[in-house]
């Protein structure tokens, strides 16, 4: 087991420096005292014990540059969820095996639990929030709804991120090909059949 689960104070009480209003809203959810906006510089700081060695980085997430301060040990997954507060991306295993944390980096799907946030400066990161929202569903999101491609929903954002990436990958037409390419996304509820239907529905319409 990891010795510092993300819910423990040591992990959450980062000093976070970030720019822009969206980012300011994003950090308000983190713990560690009042959120202080520094006018003029456009910099917002969350108080809290400063983790020694935290480094400033800029990550481009869903088309927006986010100026952040992260402990270099922070995985991309923890950074997206805890620092940027985009909690659509889920943590299942934290070991690369379940796919719940799937995001796109430069258009390719990756497990965000398997790299450090600092390794992604200058790259284009897309999370489920960047794919589509309740009012503007991506066709894949709509197909998951139409086909009932989930039960508890925990694996779903990872499934959808994988499925959207799959559309641009060399993938055979049949269900077996889809299953092979979706094998990195585990669904504990076993919604696999409907997930495959949703993906095939989108591919047929494309």
């Amino acid at each position, binding site marked *: 087991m990891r010795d510092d689960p993300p819910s423990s104070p040591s992990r959450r009480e980062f000093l976070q420096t970030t720019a822009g209003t969206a980012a300011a809203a994003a950090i308000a959810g983190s713990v560690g005292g009042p959120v202080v906006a520094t006018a003029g510089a456009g910099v917002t700081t969350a108080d809290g014990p400063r983790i020694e060695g935290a480094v400033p980085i800029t990550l481009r997430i869903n088309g927006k540059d986010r100026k952040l301060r992260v402990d270099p*040990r922070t995985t991309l997954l923890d950074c997206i969820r805890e620092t940027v507060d985009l909690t659509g991306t889920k943590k299942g295993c934290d070991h*690369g*095996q379940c796919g719940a944390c799937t995001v796109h980096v430069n258009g390719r799907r990756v*497990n965000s639990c398997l790299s450090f946030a600092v390794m992604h400066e200058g790259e284009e990161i897309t999370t489920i929030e960047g794919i589509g929202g309740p009012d503007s569903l991506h066709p894949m999101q709509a197909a998951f709804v139409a086909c009932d491609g989930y039960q508890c929903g925990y694996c779903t954002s990872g499934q959808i991120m994988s499925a959207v990436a799959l559309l641009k*990958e060399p993938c055979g037409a049949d269900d077996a090909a889809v299953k092979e390419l979706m094998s990195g996304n585990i669904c504990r509820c076993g919604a696999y059949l409907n997930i495959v239907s949703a993906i095939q529905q989108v591919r047929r319409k494309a």
Partner: protein
Amino acid sequence: MQVHRPYTLHDALALMAATPTPTPIAGGTDLLVSWHHKPKEKLALLDLSQLGGELAAMRLTADTLELGALTTYWDVIASPEVSRAFPLLAEAARQVGAMQIQTRGTWAGNIGNGSPAADGVPVLMAYDATVVLQSTRGRREVQLDGYYTGYKKTVRLPDELIVAIQIPRRTRKAEWFEKVGARAAQTITKVGVAVVNDEKGWRVVANSVAPYVCRCRNLESALQKGQKFKSPEEIRDILKNDIAPINDMRSTAAYRETVLSRVLFYRLADKA
């Protein structure tokens, strides 16, 4: 924990020459699985991802395929030319973890991790690959067959980086790869084997049956002499001197030995 992010190979090699030596990280798909257990304060990483230009390229020429150290499994899968020229690379790549691992995991990382269960290493070794190592002291080439000296032990010196993997293009009479795991995808190999017969002869490379991925030289010389096998047991007897399988959480020595000899028997009967 420190993360160095050099932008040039020159700077990366200078950092590798410093003390303490940082741990190179490419895709991170091996390192991040165990990083929770490492004393983090002491961990210094050298992130290779910015060396894209110098280390990322794949070069396919008339006589060689060169994989820059940052070449991922996906790069091979997505290249029809490379997949056609070296079908086992694509075949093995598609069986490493799942797609999200294939987009990040590198061939050099697979070699560097040194796992006896590595799936990229058998096909590379069967294709007679060479590992190119570089440090501030210079550049040298080492046969992948000969790279490992023990369990997770290699000839790479602490300040050296793997910069490329070179594979000769040859005419092949037979080539195949078989991975046996608990299921089809996202599984660690219980036993695996890559076989190539080209103008330089037979190479049979097995994984998960010894402290490191190794060639089965006794079986290779039997094949070289044109020996035909009447049963899997006959192959098993020859393999006894080539492999040293163990019982572990994934399988047993007996299973590994039995399955390896059967896979070899039936596939050699097909293709040899």
